[in-house]
């Protein structure tokens, strides 16, 4: 019996909103599988960690299924998207939630200011600080689509930043773990390029 090889497993963290990501992967002819099964995720060539809802709900679901431990120990490329990226950090101010702790920083609440409503919703420029494969083919200052009320501060792991009153982490990467604060699946051609780059990362085991 042969099994169709897949390119990426999407972690089903209980958010309703996996369809747009699946559609984006289909447009790239990528074979994806949605799963909450620790074994399936461990064996995946690459792992996408999306997130909708709040940090406390998402972490509660990951802990209840033991996936928090599975994710921490992964060696293959992982990309967290939006809340999925924030979960990689040590802690989030959203519900004062301990997160996966893969990255050493605390995700902070955005404060609204004149001309800067919160949630931050819209197309914002992204500037690379390091040359990484995930950002191949993107121009400096490319617009990508953000929707968030919390954000990660800029740390040495921030490979790209965006300015919303202050510099925030737009793309983070440490070892095999990476994340985007923006939604690549809804960021036009530039976003599709980020997903394409992720799918091209070697699936080391």
């Amino acid at each position, binding site marked *: 019996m042969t099994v169709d090889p897949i390119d990426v497993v999407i972690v089903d963290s209980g958010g309703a909103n996996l369809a*747009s990501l699946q559609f984006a992967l289909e447009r790239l002819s990528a074979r994806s599988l949605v799963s909450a099964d620790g074994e399936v995720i461990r064996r995946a060539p690459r792992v996408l960690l999306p997130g909708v809802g709040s940090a406390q709900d998402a972490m509660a679901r990951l802990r209840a299924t033991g996936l928090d431990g599975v994710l921490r120990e992964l060696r293959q490329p992982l990309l967290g998207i939006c809340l999925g990226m924030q979960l990689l950090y040590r802690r989030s101010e959203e519900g004062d939630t301990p997160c996966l702790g893969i990255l050493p920083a605390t995700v902070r609440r955005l404060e609204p200011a004149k001309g800067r409503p919160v949630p931050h919703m*819209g197309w914002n420029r992204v500037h690379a600080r390091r040359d990484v494969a995930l950002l191949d083919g993107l121009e400096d200052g490319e617009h990508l689509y953000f929707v968030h009320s919390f954000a990660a501060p800029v740390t040495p792991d921030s490979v790209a930043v965006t300015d919303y009153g202050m510099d925030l982490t737009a793309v983070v990467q440490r070892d095999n773990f990476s994340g985007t604060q923006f939604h690549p699946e809804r960021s036009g051609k530039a976003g599709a390029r980020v997903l394409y780059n992720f799918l091209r990362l070697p699936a080391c085991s």
Partner: protein
Amino acid sequence: MRDGRVVKGVRFRGHTVVGEIMDLAARERDEGAGELVVYDITASPEGRSVDREWVRRVAAVLDIPFCVAGGIASVADAEAVLAAGAEKVSVNSPALADPALIARLAARFGSQCVVVGIDSETTAHGYRVHALTGDPDRARDSGRETLAWAQEVQDRGAGEIVLNCMASDGVRRGYDLAQLAAVRAVCHVPLVASGGAGEIAHFEAVFRDAGVDAALAASVFHSGLIRISELKTALARAGVEVRP
């Protein structure tokens, strides 16, 4: 949308078919639209929720944010629309009938997912919120004042407000700058202007004078009167930050 086709009216009346949803969705995507919003306008008046099948078909071809509105009256309705591929749901009449719906949606999906549409009419008694506007025979004053409702929906967890100024809708004489600026003053979430766009200068004015975060338009884009690509070039020249 009405009965599966894209329609546009003038001041919420006399809707005529302007095209097929898949054609228009793909065209506005390719033209550089920053987000697509689709209203199933007869869903609430007919007491039903938006049809998920077309949500799914549209979502599959869009690589930009996608917001869907139409009779979304429960967490389950919203879940189905989001599962079909929308990013955001917009509620209008259901929120007026059951304001606590906004908080339930925000708790489940996060505020960023919850848009409140406000259809606001200019009357002798000030700006008033109208409900069931998709059907001219059933549309009515909700009994609410627009500025108070804008504040209330934010308190309840709305992550974005689309203000549709009914007196300006479809007549292409420009956005209602005074009303939008008044709502802007009480709005700390993203504010989207809707109703009245007729020429490029109207877009420049609404960003400059009303301080909105985004401008929504329908007929001028669908008819080809304004091309989004040209509009964005003009806005950038006027100093408005836009995605090229």
